[in-house]
């Protein structure tokens, strides 16, 4: 399933919906969207990934890039990830630096 991404910023919250397969070929799109939205200085980044079926290390590197670009104080929420992606986040230590939750409310 091809990768697709949509992004919007509402009330200083950047909301991305990612689906399909995030690999080295598609990670550039994700990075570009992060760059675009960084100009609006969001206070929070929320990734809705229920339909993201695959994530390679290229996706992890974009998360690092997002943290560097948006600022360490901007929290990253990953909403409803599939089990293998949680597994990848866990074994690489990313779970310590992002918030994973089954659903998202603007109250956080």
């Amino acid at each position: 399933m091809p990768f697709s991404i949509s992004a919007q910023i509402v009330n200083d919250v950047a909301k991305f919906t990612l689906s399909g397969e995030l690999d080295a070929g598609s990670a550039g799109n994700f990075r570009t969207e992060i760059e675009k939205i960084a100009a609006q200085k969001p206070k929070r980044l929320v990734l809705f990934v229920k339909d993201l079926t695959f994530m390679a290390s290229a996706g992890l590197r974009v998360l690092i890039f997002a943290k560097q670009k948006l600022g360490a104080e901007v929290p990253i929420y990953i909403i409803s990830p599939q089990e293998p992606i949680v597994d990848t986040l866990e074994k690489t230590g990313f779970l310590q630096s992002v918030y994973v939750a089954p659903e998202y409310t603007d109250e956080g």
Partner: protein
Amino acid sequence: MEPKSFAGTLDSLSLIREYVTSAANSAGLDRKATYGLCLAVDEIATNIIVHGYEGAGRSGVLDMRTEMESGTLTVIIEDDGVAFDPRENKLPDSEDFSKPLENRPIGGLGVFLAFDGVDEFKYERSGGRNRNIFVVHHQSHTNT
């Protein structure tokens, strides 16, 4: 699985994952083991394409084949890119993994996931080609 060649471009990654998934399904691997194998192969294939070919100004293919015997599924990639043994790569360690995201080194994550995704990883250099070998002992990862 019949051997298959893939163009050494990032567009091939999804086709490579399909090929590996098909082999894993034939071997009866469970979902978790299939994902781990796909991720492992994807990471090394990415390195071959990005560093072995594109980064070196070369073009070429990834020749893939699979072997299933004695409770073991083996996936083999051969390429003509720059010689590179992933086992010599510096891997992130527990200290790296405990750093805040913004301070994390980005190198080595892919190779770490590649090694983690399979039971054995081997590398050989033969006839001027790289040969990356991924082994899953599928009796411990089957759906039965």
